[in-house]
């Protein structure tokens, strides 16, 4: 069935997603070529690939974002295809064109579709033409601060600044009042430039208490366009997703069909091919509004894989090889519920500050229905140059409650020593009654953080109390009751997380 053989893939990325692509290649008998900056010589994707080549200094703008270097390495290594992962050049039409010009299959949509959909403002114009509902805002990037100020007054505050070429929450800023506009524009542009090599941003009206729900699509070169259902991605901090799940607790079969149909309509209009994601805002009344299209694999693709049984990276490679999907919308079935937690090198109770450094201890969660997609290992030093995502912990359960219980167990097993990670806050979110009830919006985490932080403060006080009582006892106040005889022989692990609380 293969129309265009793919035998060796250059993975133009790093971290867990590079590892994910390398694994998919290996499972299909395809050789993999890794690239690495000077900061990544010991990264896991380098250790796992069949071949690995250096591409320059640590800053991404001098390595992972340099199109010429990547194409040159692909050609020199004899690769016949390039997988861009997510981030970096994944939504860069010029990169897709450069690959095609060099005779390399780009594992992603055609450059025209990337241009039409990847540029958020252009995608909004298409959605408007198709009559898909969307949030008011600019249909073009804003050129100057002055123009931005004028448009902002029209839209009204609060509003959102978003990166035109971006995704993953980078270059996104909420602006509550006009006085914040200039600083927010500067930071959004800086982040967008560093992350995507393009600092263009646009403005959009802010919707209060929305959910962020997105639809996975797959389209082959033979006219088949399918959707694989939705992902709920409302648990965010700094506009970046932290926990995702599928299905969404608020989407039923009818709504899934409507959102899926809208997503496929947009994909067809843009001549879309390969895997993509159509993002929607959903308001408390369950109305959905088109937001943007991500013309690539998403970080959170595993939750869709777990409920549909479809290997999205495998499908990406098959589609790129010009194979037909070979199944139809009616063949897509959903089973159970899947949740993904992002384990980032960040200090959740220290203002989410990045936490680069050496991982001196790592024990991952394993066991039934627990999946770990990781770019980290014990002894690995997390460099300060790239994003904070270390690993994704994914669980599946027969229903949402079972998946939450399993995630609670898995987070309790997962231990990373040496750097701060999001694990403690993930454990607290998953244990939160509103999370279990499915009552949340994208504001959820910001709203509950003060309470979570004060709970952490209480834990700190408990630690001080324990330390003081130990010293009190050491000084001769040996008045603590003896252990009872029944448990004298018992050995208890004091490091348990979460669920032991009475």
């Amino acid at each position, binding site marked *: 069935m293969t129309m265009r053989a793919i035998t060796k893939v250059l993975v133009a990325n790093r971290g867990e997603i590079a590892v994910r692509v390398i694994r998919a290649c290996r499972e299909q008998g395809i050789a993999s070529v890794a690239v690495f900056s000077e900061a990544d010589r010991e990264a896991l994707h380098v250790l796992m690939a069949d071949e690995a080549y250096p591409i320059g200094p640590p800053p991404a703008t001098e390595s992972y974002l340099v199109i010429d270097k990547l194409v040159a390495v692909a050609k020199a290594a004899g690769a016949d295809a390039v997988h861009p992962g997510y981030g970096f050049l994944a939504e860069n039409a010029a990169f897709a064109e450069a690959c095609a010009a060099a005779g390399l299959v780009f594992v992603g949509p055609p450059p025209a579709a990337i241009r039409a959909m990847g540029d958020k403002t252009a995608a909004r114009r298409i959605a408007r033409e198709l009559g898909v509902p969307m949030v008011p805002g600019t249909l073009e990037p804003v050129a100057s601060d002055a123009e931005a100020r004028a448009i902002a007054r029209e839209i009204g505050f609060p509003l959102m600044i978003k990166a035109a070429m971006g995704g993953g929450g*980078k270059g996104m800023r909420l602006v509550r009042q006009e006085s914040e506009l200039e*600083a927010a524009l*500067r*930071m959004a542009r*800086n*982040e967008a430039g*560093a*992350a995507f090599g393009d600092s263009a941003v646009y403005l959009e009206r802010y919707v209060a208490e929305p959910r962020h729900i997105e639809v996975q699509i797959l389209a082959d070169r033979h006219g088949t366009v399918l959707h694989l259902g939705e992902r709920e991605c409302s648990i965010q901090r*700094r506009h970046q997703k932290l926990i995702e799940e599928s299905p969404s607790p608020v989407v039923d079969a009818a709504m899934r069909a409507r959102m899926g149909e809208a997503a496929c309509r947009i994909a067809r209009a843009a001549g879309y091919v390969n895997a993509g994601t159509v993002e929607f805002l959903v308001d408390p009344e369950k109305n959905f509004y088109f937001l943007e299209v991500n013309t690539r694999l998403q970080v959170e693709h595993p939750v869709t894989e777990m409920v549909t049984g479809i290997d999205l990276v495998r499908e990406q490679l098959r589609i790129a090889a010009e194979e037909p999907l070979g199944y139809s919308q009616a063949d897509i079935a959903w089973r159970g519920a899947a949740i993904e937690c992002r384990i980032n*090198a960040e200090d959740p109770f*220290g*203002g*989410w*500050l*990045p*936490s*680069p450094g050496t991982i001196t201890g790592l024990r991952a969660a394993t066991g039934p229905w627990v999946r770990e997609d990781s770019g980290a290992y014990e002894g690995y030093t997390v460099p*300060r140059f*790239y*994003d*904070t995502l270390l690993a994704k912990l994914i669980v599946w359960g027969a229903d949402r409650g079972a998946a939450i219980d399993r995630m609670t167990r898995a987070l*309790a097993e997962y231990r990373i020593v040496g750097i701060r990670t999001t*694990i*403690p806050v993930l*454990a607290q979110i998953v244990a939160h009654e509103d999370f279990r009830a499915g009552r949340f919006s994208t504001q959820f985490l910001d709203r509950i953080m003060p309470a979570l932080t004060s709970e*952490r403060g209480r*834990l*700190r*006080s*408990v*630690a*001080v*109390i*324990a*330390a*003081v*009582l*130990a*010293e*009190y*006892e050491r*000084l001769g*106040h040996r*008045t*603590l*009751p*003896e*252990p009872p005889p029944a*448990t004298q022989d*018992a*050995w*208890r692990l*004091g*490091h*348990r*997380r*979460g669920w*032991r*609380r*009475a």
Partner: protein
Amino acid sequence: MKFVATIDGQAETVEVTGDHGRYRLTLGGEVWEVDARLTAQGIYSLLIDGVSYVADVTDREGACVVDVGDETYVIQVEEATRYIIRTKGGAAGGHAHQVLAAPLPGKITHVAVTVGDAVKAGDTLLVIEAMKMENEFRAGTAGTVAEVRVQPGQAVNAGDVLVVID
């Protein structure tokens, strides 16, 4: 009996009374009623307001290492008199400088203040870019900027002093 517990560089006074597993501790202005029990070597079971905590207390080079919940704290505990003698008056004796040291390695992308500026608590001092994040750092208290040791574009290591406020 009074102790001083030092945690993350902050010294806190803790007063303990009680015995036989029932204690009253005063800490941070709050009173804590604690039912404590040593269940095994170094493992304390604490009941506070009906909530049960298991704390694993071990000694490392004279400091207490306490594992509780999913966190590990390193705490220096001293009898209060001894602490005061050692520090010649304790933390309260020093002059109230505010020093912003880099909490992580990264690159300075923006400096919002110059020497002599008056700042109030919450004002942005500078921005460090690390791991593709722009991280803003703000003044903790009001004061006057005494030193600015960095400029935009400069790479910094964790611990480098960036700004001093008098």
